[in-house]
């Protein structure tokens, strides 16, 4: 599974104003990986494996790194990053992805 963040500095919601780097500069690359954009999701994709041809179009079009290739070449979403945008379902070649609303 995904390991979010670089663990080089404190989580944002524990950082004090005294610890802000001058000018808001970020010293390490890739810190945006910490953002749990999956919190925004109101629906998520579900793959019907019997119709999936493992072409990887969903993986290619996903605007986040939110689709993971599983052993065997099938795909699933990463709940940490999937915003539920539905691009994968829209672009799926065989129509094997369905967007399912999140439960309350």
């Amino acid at each position: 599974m995904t390991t979010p963040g670089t663990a080089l500095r404190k989580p944002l919601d524990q950082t004090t104003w005294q610890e802000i780097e001058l000018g808001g500069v970020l010293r390490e690359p890739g810190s945006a990986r910490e953002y749990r954009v999956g919190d925004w999701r109101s629906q998520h994709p579900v793959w019907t494996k019997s119709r999936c041809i493992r072409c990887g179009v969903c993986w290619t079009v996903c605007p986040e790194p939110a689709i993971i290739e599983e052993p065997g070449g099938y795909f699933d979403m990463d709940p940490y990053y999937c915003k539920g945008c539905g691009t994968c379902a829209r672009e799926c070649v065989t129509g094997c992805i369905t967007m399912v609303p999140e439960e309350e």
Partner: protein
Amino acid sequence: MSAKPAKAKRVGMEVSIAVSHAVQLARAEAIAAYPITPQTHIVEHLSSLVANGELEAEFVNVESEHSAISTCIGMSAAGARTYTATSSQGLALMHEILYITSAMRFPIVMTVANRALSGPLSIWNDHSDIMGARDIGWIQIFVENGQEAFDHSVMAFKIAENAKVLLPTIINLDGFILSHVVEALEMVDQATVDKFLPAYVPRHNLDPKHPVTMGAFAMPEIYTEVKMNHQVTLTQSYDHILKVWNEWGKLTGRQYQPVERYQTKDAKILLLTMGCLSEVAEIAVEEMRDQGLPVGLLKLRLWRPFPFQDLREAVKGAELLIVCDRALSLGGPGGPVLSEVRSALYPMAERPATVGYIIGLGGRDVNPSAFKDIVNKAQAEVSEGLKEEFHLYGVRG
């Protein structure tokens, strides 16, 4: 003025040209500017200095003020000592980038030759341009004559670039009334400025060997902490500003204060002005003192960070404070300076009655007689009880 000036040379010079010489003496390395009246002479002259090889700097001609300040950010991010100047609509066009400049902590120095904002279109002086940019997070200083414009243009770099400050700084000088007059100035020589102003050492700069991200976004979890960091830095820059002013005072004999006092001893009535109105008000104060009126003058030099304690000290003992604004907060509490001064004095157990007069809008002339008239009117108003939030002095109808 008792200290011995260092190799002072007194020369007659247009104030705009003096400012550009101050920038030259400060060895600015990067300038991006767009010409706008009445700032034009400053950047025109700097452009000539660069073209003639008298100032070793990159001068970038841009197509707008939005681009000017954006280019300055880029050059400052590369580690260069950076300067620009603007006025009025130009400052307004920079607006969104001004907040970014200070949040990213680029110590750019900018002269604002204060001019009225349109509309109606006016190229003449008032303070509406800078009052619209009150909350941009820059250090903001007002000057009242050519000597101050020169001195503060040099000092601004030292203040802005201090490792504990690293904030952009605006020097406000009144357009035309100050920018275009010829005054006798004491220049400071290059060796003195070189000794006073060390080279700029950026904390972060654009360096492929040490890549960083500048200007990243902030999630709700961290935005408030970033703002607090900026707020505390700007507030605490006060001490460093005073240190630099004191050092300059020892060097040149010209000592500056956040709130300057003129004839304030035993004064019961105080006028408060900013910029070159102060020199006009001085004449009025002297004439009123001759007539036995206990009038004094406060000149608010440091606008950001706001000098709360200096102001509270300065008004002690006064019964009436008359704040003269050169801008109008439409539909609001009158002048922006009045509003802030009233707010600053509110916690005081004993404070003077504070009235506001807005004068000199859009280049309208203000004579010493106006200040005398204002003092009379304000005295009458206070004895009868305040009826208006503020007054637009001299308006017909």
